């Protein structure tokens, strides 16, 4: 198995939800604060160890997703680049204080199936991070020389 392919392959998940499509879409978007695991995934949780205050999904053109931290800061997670309720939305995703980092893409589609709703999520664009990772790795390999030299100095003194 090629490691390279795995690293950049899209993540795909499908889930059946026993509710009407409009409700499924609204739960994912305007009610994201009701279910998103902020304790596991939020910038505040990463930095402070406890969940962010909330997360807000602003739909529509030019919309964003952002978290509000316990200190009242608003930190962007994503730009909403397509918003077609109740069928589909697409996000350019980078939940980070480092907004110069490349964004990955999350596309979520909602399909009616016999009174229930199938939700398909695709998280792709990992190769964008890969390009940056390659650059970063280059930086690190130079960094390592410095670090190892300093380590050797300490270890042998």
């Amino acid at each position: 198995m090629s490691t390279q392919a795995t690293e950049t392959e899209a993540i795909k998940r499908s889930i059946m939800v026993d509710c009407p499509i409009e409700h499924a879409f609204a739960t994912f978007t305007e009610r994201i604060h009701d279910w998103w695991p902020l304790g596991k995934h939020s910038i505040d949780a990463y930095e402070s160890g406890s969940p962010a205050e909330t997360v807000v999904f602003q739909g529509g053109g030019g919309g964003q997703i952002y978290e509000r931290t316990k200190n009242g800061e608003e930190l962007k997670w994503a730009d909403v680049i397509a918003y077609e309720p109740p069928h589909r939305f697409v996000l350019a995703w980078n939940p980070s204080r480092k907004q110069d980092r490349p964004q990955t893409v999350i596309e979520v589609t909602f399909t009616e199936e016999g009174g229930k709703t199938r939700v398909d999520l695709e998280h792709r664009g990992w190769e964008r991070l890969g390009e940056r990772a390659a650059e970063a790795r280059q930086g690190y390999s130079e960094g390592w020389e410095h670090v190892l030299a300093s380590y050797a100095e300490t270890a042998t003194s």
Partner: protein
Amino acid sequence: MDALGDRTRRAIFEQLRSGPRAVGEIADELPVSRPAVSQHLRVLKEAGLVTERRNGTRRLYRLDPDGLGELRDYFDDFWNEALAAFKAAAEDERRKG
């Protein structure tokens, strides 16, 4: 001395690939002391390869997602959990509009 240091760091690295760990947990699986592991972690942190965060009273070390493209692996797991939470919220009768 260098070679040993290098090999130990690589072993620490491999452990962190499977998830965040505390210093003690790392040291338990290696033939080196806890202070030695801390020293190696400091070097790895300075090189931007590992980050540290506090979890309650514990200090956990993990690979830096910015540096290593570990982000995909993280979300591979994360979406399972997030979508399960989403399903539960969407199917919660009391909240259905």
